[in-house]
């Protein structure tokens, strides 16, 4: 034992003179660090109830529950996370995965209560003192548990496509599709929003598992037109996608197209298990009017149920607006045929060039067929009715598109103005731009709409691609008069449109007459919406059919009219778009089946 070892410890008495480490009273206020993982906060303005927090929580501490005042909307489940602090481990993975950044954690860490129930709480709904604290843990921009960037879709360059009608979008390859499918959070907001309620997370999951055939079967459960919808669907699912709030939505449409593209037409029956359907087991015969998306969808699901279905089509080919409205560069005819040929192969008969009401009276169909599904679509153009719109050089977009598909010559002006801001307006603009390019070697076409660019109903990519093809898009103008000189069109006068809808959301445009514009033109195309032609319904029948508001036919939830054998669906009831038509057709098919089964009893 050394003397040093006895003396040295005594030197610590110097601490007596130091300031004590301990303090007299306990700390009352000691805020957590700036990014402390304290109690949860939820910003209801951002939260969409996607449930990714619930999904990633490793303790099952999070449940999504309905909360008063939170509405169920497209892209918003109306549910909000409720957190059980008996289970939470404060790992903050829920915060890291939250696609909207709504869920955060405050730096508050003390919470004392004698009621254990309060510790199961819904941040945002249950008012807490830390609800609006700014400090605390939030998702770092430096890390990512999910990928917000879409795998870019390759397209033909503008100079390679602006003269031809060849398909623009190239489609994903396997690697790209897998990477895109990997981004899915499987929240299901898309399924809730899709009119046909396609099980999108399931087919994306099957694709991710490299099980294309299963993915393809899931597509057909709710949509018999996957090649078509995989190209031109209005993809409400992508608007609802959880990733859309903070980044780019999953390319659901392109993935659907990828899946459908992988299965060759000759394998459809084998993959879908419909090889033995050709011989109908149920005696009933059903007539469908119109071979558009809704009619084809109804025919497909009726055929699957074993009915004998016959479609009557006024035009010489099938597809309706899909063929006669949508240009080939967006939807090639061979892809339309691939979907429709499969439906035909199930025993569905299509009689072309037969206009019901004209060639066969609607009532006569009832003699031969047990039920009739009419999905006749919106094929009549609507006019702006402005002065000069009665000139012979003013056309309807739908008429021109139909004639062009039929192979007829359509007029192509040197300087064209298109009135309308929807997808049809873009279709005719880009079709005419191509024809101008072919005919004159240059494009001079302007599309103008009431809506400003941010609320234009056309898809964003349509606007971008139109401009790439040198068409001019001038949104936010209201057409006033088509100037006619010597019987010829001189141009279109417009005034500034300030707003399109009023406070109630009703169509009620307001203009500023002082701000004017004039587009020179020798041809004007109107594309401001389409109307329905119900002339095939005889006056006698019309009296029996209950009509709804604005000249629409009143139908029940199964698309059955008050005349029990007549079912009506498609664009004339709901839409207008392909996916609504597909959804209507499916529902109507099930309703027809139910109606006929009930009759048997």
């Amino acid at each position, binding site marked *: 034992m050394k003397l040093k070892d006895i003396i040295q*410890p005594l030197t610590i008495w110097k601490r007596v003179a130091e300031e004590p480490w301990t303090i007299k009273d306990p700390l009352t206020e000691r805020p957590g660090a700036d990014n402390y993982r304290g109690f949860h906060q939820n910003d209801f303005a951002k939260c969409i109830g996607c449930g990714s927090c619930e999904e990633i929580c490793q303790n099952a501490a999070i449940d999504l529950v309905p909360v008063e005042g939170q509405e169920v909307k497209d892209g918003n489940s109306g549910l909000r996370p409720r957190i059980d602090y008996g289970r939470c481990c404060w790992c903050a993975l829920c915060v890291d995965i939250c696609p909207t950044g709504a869920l955060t954690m405050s730096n508050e860490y003390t919470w004392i209560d004698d009621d254990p129930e309060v510790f199961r709480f819904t941040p945002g709904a249950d008012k807490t003192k830390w609800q609006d604290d700014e400090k605390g843990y939030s998702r770092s921009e430096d*890390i990512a548990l*999910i990928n917000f960037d879409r795998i870019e879709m390759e397209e033909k360059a503008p100079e390679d496509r602006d003269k031809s009608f060849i398909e623009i979008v190239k489609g994903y390859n396997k690697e790209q599709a897998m990477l895109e499918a990997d981004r899915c959070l499987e929240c299901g907001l898309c399924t809730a929003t899709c009119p046909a309620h396609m099980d999108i997370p399931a087919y994306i999951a099957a694709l991710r598992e490299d099980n294309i055939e299963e993915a393809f079967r899931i597509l057909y459960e709710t949509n018999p037109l996957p090649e078509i919808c995989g190209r031109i669907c209005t993809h409400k699912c992508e608007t609802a996608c959880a990733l859309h709030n903070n980044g780019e939505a999953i390319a659901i449409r392109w993935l659907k197209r990828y899946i459908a593209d992988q299965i060759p037409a000759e394998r459809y029956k084998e993959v879908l298990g419909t090889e033995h359907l050709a011989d109908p087991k149920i005696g009933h015969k059903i007539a469908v009017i119109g071979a558009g998306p809704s009619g084809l969808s109804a025919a497909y699901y009726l055929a699957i149920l074993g009915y004998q279905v016959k479609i009557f089509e006024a035009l010489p080919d099938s597809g309706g607006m899909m063929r006669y409205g949508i240009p080939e560069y967006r939807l090639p005819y061979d892809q339309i045929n691939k979907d429709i040929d499969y439906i035909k192969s199930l025993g569905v008969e299509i009689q072309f060039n037969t206009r019901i009401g004209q060639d066969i009276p609607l009532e006569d169909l009832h003699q031969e067929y047990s039920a009739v599904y009419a999905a006749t679509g919106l094929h009549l153009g609507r006019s702006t009715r402005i002065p000069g719109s009665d000139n012979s050089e003013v056309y309807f977009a739908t008429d021109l598109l139909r004639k062009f598909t039929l192979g007829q010559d359509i007029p192509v002006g040197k300087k064209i103005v298109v009135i309308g801001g929807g997808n049809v307006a873009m279709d005719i603009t880009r079709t005419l731009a191509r024809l101008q390019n072919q005919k004159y070697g240059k494009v001079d076409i302007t599309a103008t709409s009431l809506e400003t660019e941010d609320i234009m109903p056309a898809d964003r990519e349509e606007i971008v691609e139109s401009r790439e093809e040198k068409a001019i898009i001038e949104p936010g103008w209201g057409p006033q008069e088509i100037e006619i000189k010597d019987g010829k069109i001189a141009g279109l006068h417009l005034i500034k449109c300030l707003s399109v809808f009023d406070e109630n959301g009703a169509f009620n445009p307001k203009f500023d007459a002082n701000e004017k514009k004039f587009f020179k033109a020798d041809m004007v195309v109107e594309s401001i919406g389409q109307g329905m032609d119900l002339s095939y319904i005889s006056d006698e029948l019309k009296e029996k059919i209950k009509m709804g508001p604005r000249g629409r036919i009143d139908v029940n939830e199964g698309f059955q009219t008050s005349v029990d054998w007549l079912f009506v669906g498609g664009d004339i009831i709901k839409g207008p778009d392909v996916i609504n038509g597909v959804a209507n057709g499916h529902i109507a098919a099930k309703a027809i089946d139910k109606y006929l089964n009930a009759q048997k009893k």
Partner: protein
Amino acid sequence: MNKISESKYKDFVADRSKYPEMENGKPVIDLDSHKFTKIWQGPQHPGVTGNMSVEIIVNGDEIVDAKTHVGYLHRGFEKLMERRRYIQCFPIVCRICVPEPDTNEYCVSAAMEDLAGIVIPDKAAWLRTLNLEMSRVAGFLMWLGGQAGSLGMGAIGQWTVAMRDYWLDLFEEMTGGRIYHMYMIPGGVRKNLPLGFKERVLQTVDRTYKLLDDIERVFLNNAIAKSRLKGLGIITPEMVSEYGIVGPTARASGIADDIRINQPYLKYAELEMKMLTSNIGDAYDRTELRFQELLQSLDLVKQILNKIPENGEIQAKLPNVLHWKIPAGQTYIKAESTRGEHGFYMVSDGSKYPRRVFARGASYTHAISVLEKLAVNITISDLAALMVSLHTCPPEIER
């Protein structure tokens, strides 16, 4: 080889008449003879490091037989992980060791990265190294207090735990959590360093140096501590390989094995450090060596702070973690914790969940078999000091 210069056990001659008879190398203990008393030290006992117990049989105050018992703390983390997505594992494993959770986080994340073929960005590797070294400092401070406390010097325990709190403040700033940091997410780390963090770490380092200076005088150069620790629980180099002893416990017996130096991971190869060893292998030697390692860790923290790049990514791109599948394979990732080699063996079968995860903590051998052997023939008052000098952490035995 093993110089026992100042051992109270040096001249100790046991009174064999009162000892149990030996039969086939095992003592015959008849409790009914009233010569022996059976005592349970633990699982609730201040001298036990965590929830385990030592069943000892004493003759007077001398331990004649010892048996270690675990099983009070089994939480089944390894099994839990078999039903967790990969991303959900790292918040679980930190709970395996409370005083020093980060080694677990590092190993499990690095194992996933190894299996999935992910290379973490440079800055993330530096931040992980900093985090691990800070956690070694905090871990050693906890142990140091325990070692002094086991000899009745409770004040030192209060000093070190208070100092550890300053380190926890730093962790709170850096990671958002004081105890369970959950910082090393697969692919990198979760947050960049907050502003002014480096200066605050350096302040705390200086503060710690000052405290350690005091502790050196009051504890390491203390006649009582020396007389009680010297010669206690001698581990020979043969025992190191026989029992699989690792870390400072092995290095105090002259085995030059430090994973950070011998098989450097993260950024340790870029740091200057030398292998610290000693050759006596008793409790005092281990205490002194760990004290030196604590000083070394403080130096490493300073080195790391000077080398962390200002800019750069902190996380490698991961696939969508909700359905992250790792290709089939197996790996073993190890790191040097304060207790020695800490490793994770992970098997992936190509699905969303790990097929098997095995956590290898140094305490398994140190606290079960080594303790059982060394506890015999010491006095009951020294048992706590022996246990702490092996630096055992029962939660990592059971997981």
